[in-house]
């Protein structure tokens, strides 16, 4: 299959204009000893064959398990209009909106998306999005360090998603950033442990709500304590839960980040996802990534542009505090469409359904002998249970029964071998939860 339009006759005419007889001559700058003889790649195929091939490959994935697996990435319903609208090629085949007159659709959509994120997080300024929730958290650390001007220490709550914590450590391996981690508390953040780790060099404390174990918290007291010490607070949040839980803005958080996958992105085996980020207005000029702003054109008409570009790498080059070039524009667009379709009441209903289903699952599982619900504090749509056997072993047996029962915490916390993190979304039915509970009982009591 080829997507080249020019005919052999046209190619001859064009070669003539270039003053050469064969296309090889146009590659004369490549030294002969570096020319490639051949490539060990498959031969091209037709579109029809490719479709059939990937249908077959896709069937080898267990995508049809009943999903109680979360860990920060959730199986939510994506309304049909999200795909239909984000699938318009005027959006998905455009480049970054460098030419604002030809990109008002993208620019206005980004501006509106930023507004949606501000309203969800209760903060004043949001960027046009980042790669994912983990890189967003890393960018927030860099931003806090730059804002503090002289501080180089970050204190992390161990309730922050362990994948993100590992990412932060990779990213800062070559930088003079000092990390401290508060000990694991499966419930809410351990205040005393966190406060003991703070010093005058601490630029920011990183929290997550609900935390990785599912516990819901009100971090206001931590924020107040940190601010008294001149330390900023970064909070990683779950956007669906923001319809119900205290927003970062309400408790005085300085920078909020999160994974936006739940807002209309399919799970797609890890991406593309959406990192969102918002902050207080005072920090706006340190916000990484693209930002769309509203202005006017020369005729006084409302117009949208990329703004505050002097912060960015293409102007600052080696002095930029972030090397982020673009955003996840199409994912941000999906999130914006999702939030518009669900609207104020719809998002609240999704949040309530998630919590009700998770509470129901919690009750059903708690009734099974040998299963202990471990999260002592309130939870949203995810909770931790302790099993009488290894959670990995349990999960394997449940998969055989067509159920992905949750995430075995031993994978990241060796001391939690028998602990399983269970999530529910609005997609799980009472029937499915019942089957889950019955199979759990069967596996454990066998």
């Amino acid at each position, binding site marked *: 299959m080829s997507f080249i339009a020019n005919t052999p006759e046209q190619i001859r005419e064009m070669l003539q204009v270039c003053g050469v007889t064969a296309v090889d001559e146009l590659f004369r700058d490549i030294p002969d000893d570096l020319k490639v003889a051949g490539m060990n790649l498959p031969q091209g195929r037709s579109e029809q064959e490719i479709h059939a091939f990937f249908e077959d490959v896709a069937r080898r994935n267990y995508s049809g398990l009943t999903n109680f697996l979360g860990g920060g990435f959730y199986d939510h319903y994506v309304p049909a209009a999200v795909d239909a609208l984000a699938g318009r090629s005027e959006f998905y085949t455009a*480049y970054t909106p460098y030419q604002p007159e030809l990109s008002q659709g993208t620019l206005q959509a980004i501006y*509106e998306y930023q507004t949606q994120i501000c309203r969800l997080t209760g903060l004043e300024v949001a960027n046009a999005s980042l790669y994912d929730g983990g890189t967003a958290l890393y960018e927030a650390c860099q931003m806090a360090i730059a804002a503090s001007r002289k501080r180089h220490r970050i204190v992390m709550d161990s309730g922050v998603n362990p994948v993100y914590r590992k990412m932060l450590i990779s990213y800062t391996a070559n930088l003079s950033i000092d990390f401290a981690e508060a000990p694991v508390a499966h419930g809410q953040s351990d205040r005393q442990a966190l406060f003991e780790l703070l010093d005058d060099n601490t630029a920011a404390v990183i929290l997550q709500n609900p935390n990785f174990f599912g516990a819901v918290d009100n971090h206001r007291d931590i924020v107040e304590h940190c601010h008294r010490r001149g330390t900023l607070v970064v909070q990683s949040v779950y956007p669906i839960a923001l319809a119900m839980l205290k927003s970062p803005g309400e408790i005085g958080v300085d920078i909020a980040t999160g994974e936006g996958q739940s807002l209309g992105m399919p799970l797609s085996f890890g991406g593309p996802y959406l990192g969102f980020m918002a902050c207080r207005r005072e920090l706006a000029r340190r916000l990484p990534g693209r930002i769309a702003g509203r202005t006017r054109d020369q005729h006084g008409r409302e117009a949208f542009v990329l703004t505050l570009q002097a912060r960015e790498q293409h102007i600052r080059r080696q002095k930029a505090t972030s090397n982020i070039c673009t955003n996840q524009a*199409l994912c941000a667009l999906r999130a914006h469409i999702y939030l518009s*379709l669900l609207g104020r009441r719809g998002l609240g209903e999704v949040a309530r359904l998630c919590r009700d289903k998770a509470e129901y699952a919690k009750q059903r599982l708690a009734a099974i002998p040998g299963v202990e619900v471990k999260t002592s504090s309130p939870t949203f749509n995810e909770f931790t249970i302790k099993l009488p056997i290894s959670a990995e072993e349990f999960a394997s047996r449940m998969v055989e029964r067509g159920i992905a029962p949750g995430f075995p915490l031993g994978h990241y916390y060796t001391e939690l071998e028998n602990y399983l993190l269970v999530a529910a979304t609005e997609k799980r039915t009472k029937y499915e939860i019942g089957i889950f509970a019955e199979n759990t009982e069967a596996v454990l009591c066998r």
Partner: protein
Amino acid sequence: MSIIFAKSVAGRRGVRPPNSDVPAAAGLPPDYLRQTEPALCELSELDTVRHFTELSRRNFGLDSGFYPLGSCTMKYNPKILEKVAALPGFANLHPLLPQLRQGGMLAQGALRVLHDLEQWLAELTGMAGYTLQPLAGAHGELTGMMIVAAYHRDRGNRKAEVLIPDEAHGTNPSSAAIAGYTTLPVATDPKTGMLDLQELKAKIGPNTAAVMLTNPNTLGIFNTHIREVAEIAHRHDAQVYYDGANFNAVMGRFRPGDAGVDVMHLNLHKTFATPHGSGGPGAGPVGVAAHLVDFLPISRVVKRQDNTFILDYDYPKSIGYIAPFYGNFAVCLKACAYIMLLGADGLREVSEQAVLNANYLMQRLKDSYDLPFDRTCMHEFVLSAKRQEKQHGIRALDIAKGLIDRGFHPPTVYFPLIVPEALMIEPTETESKETLDRFVAAMRELAETAAADPESLRQAPKSTPVGRPDEVRAAREMDVCHPA
């Protein structure tokens, strides 16, 4: 058009979630609840559909017309790629499944896609190993420089500097800086358009950790001395980083690995036809030579003797996790399908046509505009509107805006920085001669208009929903969120 929040009507409903089939849970204690609901829109589904359809009409995509944006490789994005990525077996697959015990067996299809793509990219570029995790080109650069840093740390090298040609994209110096290095520019030889070897030799030393090189460079010129650059770098135990942003020029013709490149990235959203999505998502896989394979991020996909695939985390020298999972999987999947569609011969033909289209355009435009480097180009070339600026006060930006009124997306302007009034043009292989000829006619007519009626160009564009926005006002007022 009005903003979506102005269209909201209190009490109107859009998509409704199902009714609950489980008992309502006891409410959370008020201390955890937000006081006021987020002020999202209240619209019908049709309101929303009309709003976004109207927004889409105020956009110009590759499907709308010719998009010769230099350095961005705006080639056709085959529709079949979207269809493949939407297959439920891929779209509904949870990324944590492989982390269950023997979980790799639950995602054999997806792991195979990742494995095959890594192999093919390695074959195309002559590198020993790949990671598909980097989520964009700039993210790939950063990952690559983190690998360089880990390599030097492992060898006990104390090196602090990275050398970068002055024509390089701004992400190169910023990626090097964020990996912990200071950067030094190396000048471009004004006669050849290539990195000045003498200056490289003068600046390189024991403190040099890496040399970053884009080849063909941002002027669209292939650096014939790439092997020599690598040899000079290696004499100082510096690593050669190859920015593969322009790889569309050389597929099947040149493999960076053969020239001594140690680490590189590719942009799947440029060379491998995955859509740009108005600015993302993309993917920036990183390839490394054999001595750097141990430093690649974890996890890595491994093919076992029985032809099954597993994820392996046991690489003690790895730089660790740089993305939560396996990269932008759906983007990698599309690139994999693209490579299988075209095959070896098709990919080679891509570069041939991309280079031919660019040379053809360059030949036909070089009389109307200045051509600072008049020599065979690769997939793109850089014109300068210096003549129009000097004689008529018409800048590259005015030419760009004039092109909009003539139905084209403008080229990249004011980049690379070393060419004044730069117009960087990359036609790609998927454009037909008729389209190129129409573009030539428009560019020539614009050069004439610049002389005859410059004022009309300063007012351009006139055919778009808005004219040139006031960027100073935007930056000063910072209206970035619609007030509630």
